[in-house]
């Protein structure tokens, strides 16, 4: 780039520096590959052992390949119910938290009002509190008031509470890059506030809301700690796994986990590919 002007001193350094740079680049790439293997290893193991046919009680050592676990995934008592409960709570909590979180994000980003800083802090706090404190404090509320019985609905309440902040943050990010001229244009063309919201604001916000909802759903499905504290006798999938982990984990648990992983990764990969194509189309479209 600018090196031509200063050839003499740099040329001598150049060789060693370039060799060092190449080595560094190489080392770094090898390291990155190893690190990614490290991150993927447990996932691979979970999927691999979903095809294992354990001889004893424990599914820790590879024995033999079988498809039985996938075919009879719900042959373990209580597994199917726990998966259904997880999905039900995931959907319900995500719906409610998405509505609450989107409204909050709009309030925070679009208006200057007294208490904005405090609101930001209140949204931020649940994300920075250890889950165990969130779960424990909510449990003390339920224990000390007779309004709630621990079970499905207390899990639902807990999930909405800890998901909503993540949705606010996600939707906020989308709102900050929002071109308000589009809304003004709609209003100038005679649309009222509600029509503008429905036809302009909502469709433009949709990717942010969808991303927030997916994140919320993933968090809900995966949550163990907060759920465990407020579940009473109710079992979500993670609570079921916790209970059975103390005895022995059947390969069917790996099947469910693998299935959840594959669905999630398919959605995420689709998103990455779509972004890549959109970026390429934009580059090619540009003069």
């Amino acid at each position: 780039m600018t090196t031509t002007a200063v050839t003499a001193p740099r040329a001598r350094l150049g060789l060693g520096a370039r060799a060092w740079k190449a080595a560094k680049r190489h080392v770094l790439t090898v390291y990155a590959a190893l690190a990614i293997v490290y991150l993927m290893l447990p996932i691979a193991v979970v999927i691999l052992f979903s095809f294992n046919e354990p001889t004893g009680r424990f599914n820790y050592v590879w024995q033999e390949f079988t498809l039985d676990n996938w075919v009879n995934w719900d042959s373990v008592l209580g597994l199917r119910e726990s998966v259904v409960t997880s999905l039900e709570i995931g959907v319900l909590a995500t719906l409610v938290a998405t509505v609450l979180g989107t409204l909050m994000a709009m309030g925070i980003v679009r208006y200057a009002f007294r208490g904005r800083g405090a609101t930001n802090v209140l949204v931020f706090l649940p994300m920075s509190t250890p889950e165990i404190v969130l779960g424990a404090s909510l449990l003390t509320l339920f224990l000390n008031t007779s309004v709630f019985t621990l079970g499905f609905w207390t899990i639902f309440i807990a999930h909405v509470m800890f998901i909503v902040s993540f949705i606010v943050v996600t939707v906020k990010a989308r709102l900050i890059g929002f071109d308000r001229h589009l809304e003004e244009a709609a209003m100038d063309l005679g649309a009222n506030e509600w029509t503008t919201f429905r036809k302009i604001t909502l469709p433009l916000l949709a990717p942010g809301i969808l991303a927030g909802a997916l994140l919320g759903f993933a968090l809900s499905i995966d949550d163990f700690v907060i759920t465990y504290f407020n579940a009473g006798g109710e079992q979500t999938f993670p609570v079921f796994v916790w209970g059975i982990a103390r005895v022995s984990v059947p390969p069917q648990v790996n099947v469910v986990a693998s299935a959840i992983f594959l669905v999630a990764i398919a959605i995420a990969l689709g998103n990455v590919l779509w972004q890549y194509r959109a970026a390429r189309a934009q580059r090619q479209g540009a003069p």
Partner: protein
Amino acid sequence: MGAFFHRHPGLTPYLLLAPGLAWLGLFFLVPLGYLAYQSLQSGVYPGFEFSWEVSNFPDALSEYREHFQRSFLYAGIATSVSLLLAYPLVYWIAFRAGPWRNLFLLAIVAPFFVSYLIRTLAWLNILADEGPVVGLLRDIHVLGADEGVLFTTLAVVAGITYNFFPFMALPLYVSLEQIDPRLLEAAKDLYASPTQAFLRVTLPLSAPGIVAGTLLTFIPAAGDFINAELLGTPKQQMIGNVIQAKFLESLDYPTAASLSFVLMALIVAGLLVYARLVGTEKLTG
């Protein structure tokens, strides 16, 4: 209040915020109040009584000092190791991975798509005494013939490190990805060696990511009990294990509540110091 609304006719933001704030108020703030209330009670289950039992706090702290120390030590080691492991990886993704960066980024997040408990249990497979990892370590005499990795401090800390790694890597990536490459070119033009350019330009500019990642990793790690439970023995129990057992097994709510409160207080104190250093707007995004 009336005067306040008169001066600010825009009620809309409050209406938008009301449902969410109400939920967070009722199910996040109020419970913290109840946690405090419970922590000041005395008695035996189910007959707890509120008695301003302030001594619960020093009692809990002195009885479970070791567990607190272990929690902060394990979380501290896991956070430092995550930082050291994540930085070069994320650096490579941000500066060398080209158009497929997002794919590698996805690889970092992928562990989140496997249920937390199950990816922890997977380490039981990987580190099993009969498994290839321990076999290799025994062959090269890092481990004795009858030594293993599972159910040791190493296994617990390794589990925590793995489980919270993405919390470190993602904010780091965001801060590295934002660095303007022209700044590095400028450093080069001014005769900075690659090392100097890294130390004087890249590293300081990634500081916000380091701080955010450290926080996001350390906080959940300090409250964790799953890794200690599944990969450790009672000798590795952290404060989370005690809180969990007191709340759900021995039903000693006041002690459990005071322990949760102390944990929360220690973390909030740390957060406030941090907020003073970088400002709330940065902290809350």
